[in-house]
Structure formats: C-alpha cells, structure tokens
C-alpha cells in the first residue's frame, strides 16, 4: 500500500485544468488581450475618439482609419477601444459586485438552512422571478441613467443567480462527511463555513460568474442602446450601436465593429468559463 506513494513526485502545475483545455486556453488568451486593450486604451487608440472631422463623415475604412468613420467623422476604431473600456468595466464590475454579495448570502442560506434559508432566499427568489431587463429598466427609471447605474442594475440582476448557484452547491458540500468530520473535531462553525464549505462550494459560482460577465456586456449594450446606460460624452458599445443604426445601409462599419467586439468578448468569457469548469468542478478536485 505505502510502497508507491512516497515515490510519486509532486505535481507542479496547480492550474492544469485551464491550461490543458484548449478552449480555456483560447478564451484566456483572448481575454488577456481584451483586458490589455481596455487598460491601455489611450496608448492603443490611433486617434482622439471624440475628434470631429467634417471631411471624414461616414468615410469607409482605409489604412489610417481601419474601422472607418462615423456620422460626425470620428474614428470608429478609437471609439470602439474607448467604448470597450467602459463596457468591460461595467460588465466586470457588476458581476464582481453581485459575486461579493451573492456568494455569502447563498453560503449562509445553504449552510444554516431552516428559517435563515427562508429569510435570505425568499426575497432573492422574488427578484429572480422578475424579467431581468425590465428590472434593470425600472431601477434606472428610479435612480436615473448612467454607466454606474447600469453597473448596479446588472449586479441586482446577477446577485440572485449567483446566490442560488452557491446555495445549491453549499447544500451538497454541507452534507459531506468531511464537513461532519470538521464538526466532530470541534472546528467553530464560522471556520467550517469559510475554510471547508466555501472552497468546495465556490467552483460552480466562479464558472457561472465568468459566463455571466460576458452576458453582462450584452445587457450593458442593450441598456445603452435604449439610452439608459452610459451618457454622452461617455460612450459604450451599446451607445455606438444606437448611434449607428440610422446609417446601417450607408455605413455598416459603424455597427459591425462594436457588434463584433461584443461577440468576441462573450465568446471569450464562455470559453474561459468552460476551461474553469474543468478545473473547478467539485468532481475534478478528487480526480
């Protein structure tokens, strides 16, 4: 029994899952590039995104302006880069906010059960029952439009989803023998929750959050398209889509490039999420 064990060399890679799955690798690489673009927008953008050029109104793509120009003669590439920065910020920020509050709520509800569960989950279920976009629009109607309000609205939509995911994985983990064993060792319940339940239950929520981040970009675009998101002079991908729709037949590049940016991002987050799943799925841990 003990013969082979001491000779097994330590496995060095702790991130085997993400990097061994090709999808995960591709998603990770694209995301890194996209984040770099968003972070270094001022260095990368070839032109001032707000510079109006009367000579270039609706000008098609050329070498100096690879994405063409919009109705005010502004460089679409530079505008996409800056708008992407706003959109990605809202997407990541909203999901993180929802994660930060949703995970502890789901964790406590799932671990304690009973009336604690009811107290936490019933209101959350009520939010979940409302149509997501309608909820966001209603929130913005109350507080007023803006990219930070869009961020908050998306967080409100996402919190119940993440809380539910964490709660269900917590229910599974809390019934495991090792949690009972931890209790039998006299481990205080606060520590059981944070050190034993959370690490084993968080995986599905991380995967879910990653995929939700991609979709947050779409929700943000939808809200902005409706004029409820980022307000001028701030631009986001949704605002660009809204601005360009009148020129769709004459100058499709104004619409295509922000659309492609959204599509690529959603795809990259999904790929990355799938890669993470391979690594973080509870079944993967005991392999």
């Amino acid at each position: 029994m003990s013969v082979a064990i001491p000779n097994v060399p330590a496995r060095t890679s702790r991130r085997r899952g993400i990097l061994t799955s090709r999808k995960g690798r591709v998603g990770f690489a694209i995301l890194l590039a996209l984040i770099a673009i968003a972070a270094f927008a001022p260095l990368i953008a070839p032109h001032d995104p707000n510079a109006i050029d009367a000579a270039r109104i609706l000008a098609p793509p050329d070498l100096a302006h690879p994405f063409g120009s919009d109705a005010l003669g502004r460089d679409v590439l530079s505008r996409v880069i800056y708008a992407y920065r706003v959109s990605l910020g809202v997407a990541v920020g909203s999901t993180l906010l929802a994660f930060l509050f949703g995970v502890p709520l789901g964790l406590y509800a799932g671990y304690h059960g009973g009336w604690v569960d009811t107290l936490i989950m019933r209101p959350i279920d009520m939010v979940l029952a409302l149509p997501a976009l309608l909820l966001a629009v209603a929130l913005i109607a109350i507080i007023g439009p803006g990219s930070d309000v869009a961020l908050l609205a998306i967080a409100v939509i996402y919190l119940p989803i993440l809380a539910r995911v964490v709660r269900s994985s917590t229910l599974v983990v809390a019934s495991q023998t090792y949690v009972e064993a931890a209790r039998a060792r006299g481990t205080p319940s606060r520590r059981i929750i944070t050190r034993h339940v959370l690490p084993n239950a968080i995986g599905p929520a991380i995967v879910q959050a990653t995929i939700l981040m991609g979709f947050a970009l779409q929700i943000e675009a939808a809200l902005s398209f409706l004029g409820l998101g980022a307000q001028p002079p701030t631009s986001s991908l949704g605002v660009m889509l809204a601005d360009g729709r009148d020129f769709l037949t004459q100058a499709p590049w104004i619409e295509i490039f922000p659309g492609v940016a959204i599509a690529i991002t959603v795809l990259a987050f999904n790929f990355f999420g799938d890669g993470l799943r391979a690594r973080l799925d509870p079944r993967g841990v005991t392999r």
Partner: protein
Amino acid sequence: MSDAILTLEHVDVGFDTDDGTVSAVSDVSLSVAAGEIFGLVGESGCGKTTLAMATMGLLPVSATVSGSVRFLGRELVGLPPEDLRRLRGDRISMVFQDPMTSLDPAFPIGEQIAETITAHRDVQRSHARDRALALLADVGIPEPERRYGDAPHRLSGGMRQRVVIATALANEPALMLADEPTTALDVTIQSQILDLLRDLRQRLRTTIVLITHDLGVIAQLCDRVGVMYAGQLVEIATVSEIFRAPRHPYTQALLAALPTQHQEPGSLRVIPGRVPNLIAPPPGCRFASRCPHVMDVCTIVPPLAHESADHLIACWLSEATREAGRPTGAATGGAA
C-alpha cells in the same frame, strides 16, 4: 464502575420523520472504563452510529435525545452547543468509516490536523504544525514533512485513515469513538489499522469505543463488547465471554452465523425473519419476532442485568433479568 469515563443511562434517540418517530436507540445503558477498548457490535441500522453521534452531540435537529450521557463526570445531554464544541476534537474525538470522504478534498492533510489543535489550543501556527508532523509520524505516515501539504486524494485509503486517526488523536483525547474505522478498507489494510489502534492505546492510554458490525474486529481488538439489536442493547460481556458463552439468543444467533472453515459453500447460516420496523416497534424485546425461545413475557422490555460481575444480559431467559424485572416488572413495558 468507579473509573468509568463514559456512562450512558437510559439513552433514547428518536428521529422525527414524515411517517412518525423512528426509535433508533431505546433505553441503552452502558459504561466504558478508562483505558479499555469497548466494542459496540450490531448489524447496520441497529443504532450504533446514532449512539456515537448522540454522545458527540452531532445528531441533526430532527433527533431527540433523552436519558443521560455522562463523560468525565459531566452531563452531555442538554449541554450548550458551544460547550459541546469545546469537548469535541479535544476530550472526545471521532474516526469516521470512510477515509475517502472524511477528509476535506480541498485542504492539505497536515492542516486538517493542525486545525484540530488550533480549534482548541491557543498555540502558534508553527507549534500546531510541529505537533501535526509528529502525529503524522506517529501514525506511520512516511516522510511527514513532504506529506504535510498534500491534498487527501494523493494518499491511499489506508494512509488517509491514518491521517484521520492522527486528527482524532491531535489533542490527546480521553475518549475516541471509532465508527467502523476499517470497514471501507481492504483486509490487509484493516489489520494494519487495527494494529495501529492497539499500539496507540498502549502508548497513549486512550479509551476507545469501537463501533463495528465485524465480530472479527471485535475479537482482535476489544476488551469488552456490547451487542445491539434494533436500537436495544442486549448483552455486554468481555470479548472472551461473548465468544465462549454468549447468553442472549441474538448474540448466539449472530455467532452461529459466522462461517467456519468446514462449511459447505452456499450454506451460510442466517437468522430467520427481519429487523422490526422502528417506527412504532413492537413492545418489549425487539428480537422477539425472530427469537427461537420467544415467550409471553417478551412483550415487556427485559432489563439489562448482571449475570456475573462483567456479564450483563437483557433477556427473560436469564435469571438475572427476571430478578431485576420483578419489582418494577410491568412498568418498564411502557418504554417502547
């Protein structure tokens, strides 16, 4: 017993279910002396584990425990949860059946031991780590320094059970409850773990309550044994007595069911009948429906009585039981 470390008196455990209350443990009284290995034997579902969980205060809220559990002179039934937590893992510890599931897969094994120490002792992390390393070496884990940071899945089943035992010993408990500690392991590993337990008992003088359905394990390791059937404790005796002269019909049937070397293949002896439903069980002795010696009086619960100094039996066939049952006789029948 004067030096009893654990004394159970008239312990009843019921579980509330949708179909009614399951009487999992009924009127169990026993005491475990300091330094001994006490075996608790019985078939699956007879209440062995429930009894251990009741002692640890680890039963779910759907369970109601009555009677008295005294540990080191202290009453545990009704003790506030925080006081129970302080005892658990410190003075009483528990080894679970399946080492594959009783270690946290996302937690290095050494730290699970260290955690048990820091949960009860105000010591520095480095001190807890040193102690954990010593414990790993103690239970026979080679190269503890290298193993300390390993996740459980990198260890074999036998190694994991050694880690679980090290965890149970972390604070040098007065009492260790081992619930089927060898059942999930194959036979060679089983005997290694039993050797380890015997060796640890000798060196550390830890009292062990060993729960098992395996009479072979009892024979190898225990000093005294209690036999349980359907939630009732039917017989307590020294191990040699139980094997030499079992008194209760269930114990006799259980021993007769052990296969021998000269047995024809396919001719395993079984006890006819089935375990009674523990929701509203029949009154009296729960073995009555399967007992070859069943009598009218068996509808009254037979009290556990001393046949000799260290042989107790709960059966109306026994003179001692009849003696003990006489004064209060009919009154005890209401328990079921």
